[in-house]
């Protein structure tokens, strides 16, 4: 199990607490005062560490192997979910999951990239790097949503789209472009949430929505920091510096006007308390759909276009 440097002291305390608990259970000794003290320490340490996270720490958190993934949130948030499969063109990409969900009174189409928890599942899911067929499955589901007037929720969590020869042969670029185009055509309310890694084109392919949100420790980037460092300094190990330069955190995205809301994660990040994270995510999503329900189909279409029309920062010389 990967433990990141900034998490080490927390994990050490947690193992100490665990040991004491076991000791008291096995030997019948009352160590509750010591345990309580260690827990206070742990809390204080977590607060201290998480108050000073650097962008690179957020990159690591967004990629944390214990971080909840799309299907975890669907299970924790939705009353019901039926997964639908296939792009109807010959493939079903396990890197993208989608289906019909019930969420707090809403009937939704949900689509998102899915990472794998163990080695076998990671390989099956291709590390959530979707192939053209993944985006084509997504498009099919978006069109289903449009036909039956179901709002769309997308959960974004991918390092990148699959860059391999197979994906190139089947038109990965076209699939990404057309997925965005399809999302622009919708007249139902759409909400996208970057829950982990928002990796470049593969991420934005599912994130053309009326509202775009990010979890507190998610990232959204045009290029992985390692790749950026390799280009600027010819040294991928300078990725932490590149992470600073790229401004890829949720707070950066909010400040740059690219997202609508940052959803707070529990102290110590989503993987320390998936339930609470899912509850916050759920209420943020419901709030968005509630607000969007005031708009007509035509307004939803226009609103989405105007949202992205504004994006970009430039000067105009007289």
């Amino acid at each position, binding site marked *: 199990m990967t433990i990141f440097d900034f998490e080490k002291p927390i994990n050490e305390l947690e193992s100490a607490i665990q040991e004491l608990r076991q000791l008291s259970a096995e030997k019948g000794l009352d160590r509750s005062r010591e345990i309580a003290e260690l827990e206070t320490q742990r809390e204080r340490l977590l607060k201290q560490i998480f108050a000073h996270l650097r962008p690179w720490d957020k990159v690591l958190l967004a990629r944390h192997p214990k971080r909840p993934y799309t299907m975890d949130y669907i299970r924790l948030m939705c009353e019901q979910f039926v997964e639908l499969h296939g792009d109807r063109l010959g493939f079903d990409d396990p890197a993208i999951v989608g289906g019909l969900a019930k969420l707090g009174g809403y009937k939704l189409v949900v689509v998102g990239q899915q990472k794998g928890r163990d080695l076998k599942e990671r390989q099956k899911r291709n590390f959530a*790097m979707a192939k053209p067929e993944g985006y084509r499955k997504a498009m099919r589901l978006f069109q289903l949503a449009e036909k039956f007037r179901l709002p769309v929720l997308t959960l974004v969590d991918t390092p990148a789209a699959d860059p391999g020869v197979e994906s190139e042969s089947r038109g990965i670029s076209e699939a990404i*472009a057309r997925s965005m185009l399809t999302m622009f055509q919708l007249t139902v309310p759409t909400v996208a949430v970057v829950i982990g890694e928002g990796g470049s084109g593969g991420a934005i392919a599912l994130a053309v929505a009326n509202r775009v949100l990010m979890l507190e420790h998610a990232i959204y980037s045009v290029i992985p920091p390692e790749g950026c460092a390799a280009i600027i300094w010819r040294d991928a190990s300078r990725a932490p510096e590149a992470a600073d330069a790229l401004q890829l955190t949720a707070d950066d995205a909010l400040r740059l006007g690219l997202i609508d809301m940052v959803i707070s994660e529990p102290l110590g990040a989503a993987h320390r308390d998936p339930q609470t994270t899912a509850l916050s995510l759920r209420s943020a999503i419901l709030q968005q759909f509630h607000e969007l329900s005031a708009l007509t189909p035509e307004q939803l279409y226009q609103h989405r276009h105007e949202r992205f029309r504004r994006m970009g920062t430039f000067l105009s010389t007289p």
Partner: protein
Amino acid sequence: MQRRVASGSSEQWVQCQKCKKILFKPDFERALRVCIHCGHHHRLRARERIAITLDPDTFVEQDAELRSDDPLRFPDYPDKLMRAQQTTGEFEAVITGTGKLGGSEVVIGVMDFAFMGGSMGSVVGEKIMRCFLRGADEYLPVILFCASGGARMQEGMLSLMQMAKTTAGVEKLQRAGLPYLAVFTDPTMAGVLASFASLADVIIAEPGALVGFAGQRVAAQASSGKPPTNFQTAEFQTEHGMVDLIVPRAQIRPTLLYLLEMFGGAG
């Protein structure tokens, strides 16, 4: 662009970048910088492309006043921009405007690889977006020549958003029922290929142009088999159904004219 040959009146001779044969410069220019020996299409600058594509003296540049900012205070970005401006004589990586093609008005945009690898930041995205909006508003077809390594890293997420923004432009033009023709020139890659470029009604590519999603090394690493020798060329993309037709440089203007005539946008 061409290496000079150190002999006699060297100004008169250039070397083909691919087959390395020596070419007589006036012939080379007359052939629109296509090698007469191997057919290699050497890169053109944006204004050279406009000159060989539109009817003479009909180009009116638009949105030339837009300049890149440095919203992220990204290391060395202002220097890079200034250097690109000095070496290319352009202010950004795409030149856009209107002009006539066979007597009919069109909106045209030409990317310039010489300017920071034709990368798409906020200005490039905005200028391309305005091409589509101008097309829709003024009821004109849109022609875009692509030449880009992808999104401009130095503007971070803002560059990424240009993929969506330009796609919104295509959607508006499509809805207005107007033709959009794209020409992939060397190279057409990554964030540009994965957004507006791939969404044209008809896609033309120049022979031998590099056209692909990821860098060649990344693609090879992510694959089990070895990439084919023509991987990520215009020819490869045509074989796989992603490009309509490969057209030699001299035939591009007549091909565009034919397409516009077919779509009722010209003639």
